[in-house]
């Protein structure tokens, strides 16, 4: 199951808070985080790496970034 976190239009630290909340509360192991600034992309990626997750893919589309993040087994 993939949980989507839509953090478009939010500036830091909101996207990171939303992503970490999702990791904490959801049973899911895959997350799609949508952000629209490069800084948010970097911050969410950094937070993921520090929380036992890894960024599997980053897709850029219409000036938005779709990050696919997977929990490490």
């Amino acid at each position, binding site marked *: 199951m993939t949980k989507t976190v839509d953090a*478009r*239009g*939010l*500036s*830091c*630290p*909101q996207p*990171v*808070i939303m992503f*970490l909340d999702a990791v904490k509360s959801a049973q899911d192991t895959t997350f799609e985080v949508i952000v*629209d*600034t*490069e*800084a948010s992309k*970097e*911050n969410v990626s*950094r*937070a993921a790496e*520090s929380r036992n997750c890894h960024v599997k893919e*980053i897709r*850029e589309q219409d*000036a938005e970034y779709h990050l696919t993040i997977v929990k490490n087994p």
Partner: protein
Amino acid sequence: MTKNFFATRTGIIAVGAVIGILAPLLQKLGNPGNMGICVACFERDISGALGFHRAAVVQYMRPEIIGFVLGSLGAALAFRDFRPRTGSAPFVRFVLGIFAMIGALVFLGCPWRALLRLAGGDLNAILGLAGLISGIWLGTLFLKNGYNLGRTQKTHFAAGLVMPLVMLGFFILMLIFPQVQGEPKNDILFYSVKGPGAMNAPLLVAIAAGLAIGFLAQRSRFCTMGALRDLLLFRQIHLLSGVIALLVTAGITNAVFGQFTMGFEKQPVAHTLHIWNFAGMLLAGLAFALAGGCPGRQLFLAGEGDGDAAVFVFGMIVGAGFAHNFGLASSPAGVGPHGIAAVVVGLTVCLSIGFFMRKQN
């Protein structure tokens, strides 16, 4: 996908080190003591140059600030990172900017200057930094409890250019109406003939340093508030490593230039009232945390198209007007006649913003 070197640990440390060298150098070349760069002080000087306040000793159109915004714009355009956006509670951010400036001027410096003051041996800065950390900690409590000013909207490319163009306009005004030796005014722009406002690095050096820092800080997302917030909120030290690099290199550079004098007394543009050094930065730190960036970061965000950050910057410039017109700003003699009242009002307003502007679950 190209890797952004400046977003790496090495990158942020390098940027902190560059600022830590350039700021004492600017002081060596003429900027005020332990004020090679101070975003709050320099915006206050710009406010004075425009006549928004009439404190005669702090009036100068600081090119560093202009360079920060334009350097950031250059980096954002060069790396396709220019994202025009606006609409996340702009007036709330304006008010946060006002009280951020009032708090900073009770302490006498922004977070950058707090670090530079410490790097110059001014021990009063420890109280300021303690206040800053406490204010940011309060801010993180609100963030944990759902504080959020809402989403921005994408806007026109041209809308993102308005703040950089305003800064360019200020620079052009400075070229048309340059400082005349010994004159307090050249047509529309005010200048200081004595005091900190009369101390400045040569214009070309100042604008070049500003552009370089603006460029690097946009790429690296350098932020003093974010450094402490991320440590408190996420136990992350990425941004903090840049801040520590700034502090260490500025200390070394000051020692090399003979600009290091340790103590509490007789420090340049500083007072020794510990409680108010702490409380001023407590207020400023809370306001920065609620607004999502230190005053430097707000300038870099404004340069990459963030209209709300631009509103915060002008909140600070207007806040300087309030601070000096109402006698809220401190001086080496101590706090202003109404400085204490302003800190109390500011804390009340900022705590209310943090409390009432939460997303309801």
